[in-house]
């Protein structure tokens, strides 16, 4: 089966909540920084930012 959706990057405020995965993790110290980094990454990678509601965003390519 072909993998059609995948996480291209993770942007998080809480380093303890993510790890051990293939996608690069970006740590942000404030919500503003997190939003900015996520926006840039989503534009560059042409992906969509999804909010996991635990201080972590994943950028998913659909």
């Amino acid at each position, binding site marked *: 089966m072909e993998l059609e959706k995948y996480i291209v990057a993770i942007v998080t405020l809480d380093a303890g909540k993510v790890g051990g995965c293939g996608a690069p993790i970006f740590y942000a110290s404030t919500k503003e920084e997190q939003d900015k980094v*996520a*926006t840039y990454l989503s*534009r560059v990678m042409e992906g*969509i930012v*999804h*909010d996991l509601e635990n201080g972590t965003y994943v950028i998913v390519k*659909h």
Partner: protein
Amino acid sequence: MINSSYLQAVLNGVILGVLIRYFLLKRDYRQYPSYPHGVITHLSMAFIAAVIGAIAIPALMEEEYTAVTFLALAATQFREVRAMERIMLEELDKTNLVPRGPDYIEGIARVFEARNYLVMFAALLVGGATYWGNIFYGLVAGFFAYLVSQKLMGGKVLGDIARVREGRVSFEGPNLFVEDIHLMNLGMEKVRKEYLERALGVVIEPYNDDGRATLANNGQRIAIAHDAAALMGIYKDVDTPEFTPIVRRDLDTGRLALIFVPLEKDIEYLLEAVKRVPVLESAVSTPLKSYLGRKAAD
């Protein structure tokens, strides 16, 4: 020396056959990928089809049975038309902001193939009528063939199988809803604000179980999103995939929700556009025609 009644039959059949194809071409301008060269390609194909159809009766009269077998040979040629359209549309679909989807493409390709057969049949009819009657009979047969082909080619639209109405767009945290149907999760506050300002929500409610099964087809849903975007204009670029219109299904009732960010916020015309989306041949499902389907429905 060519028999003049043969010539008359063939010419009449060819001319009317190509004319019918031309009128059918005009009807599907919106889904038609290219003008003017695509049109020329298809008119040429129609010409070949019409010649084959029109020549069949004179060939039979002359007891040239080999000539008639060319009809069968031609049929395989026109299968190529379908493959040609499919390949081209699939390639073009890759660069489409809102793709048509494979089901829609297959439907279009099938229509192109079928129309050539219709032309062949019409030319045969006109040729026969002209040969055994006169030109006037040929014209009447041509008109009749035109009416039949229009009837055969006019498929259903979404408005026939479902009620289309506006739906309220809202967020619960990052989750986007149209009424109570969940569409997707959007992380960015800015994007959510734009959705609340600009997006239009549409709810599509099937009239019966047949409609519900048809709307469940994912290809049909992609086609709805594509047609809405093609007609209304879309607020999206390649690097903002979050504004891609999507259609999701309510598992309990089979209703669909479309979320769409148009360039011009005009719900009235969006509803009209959605109503006119063709029901794809490959999506049509009729469980109500079977005993079990009817029993399960109540």
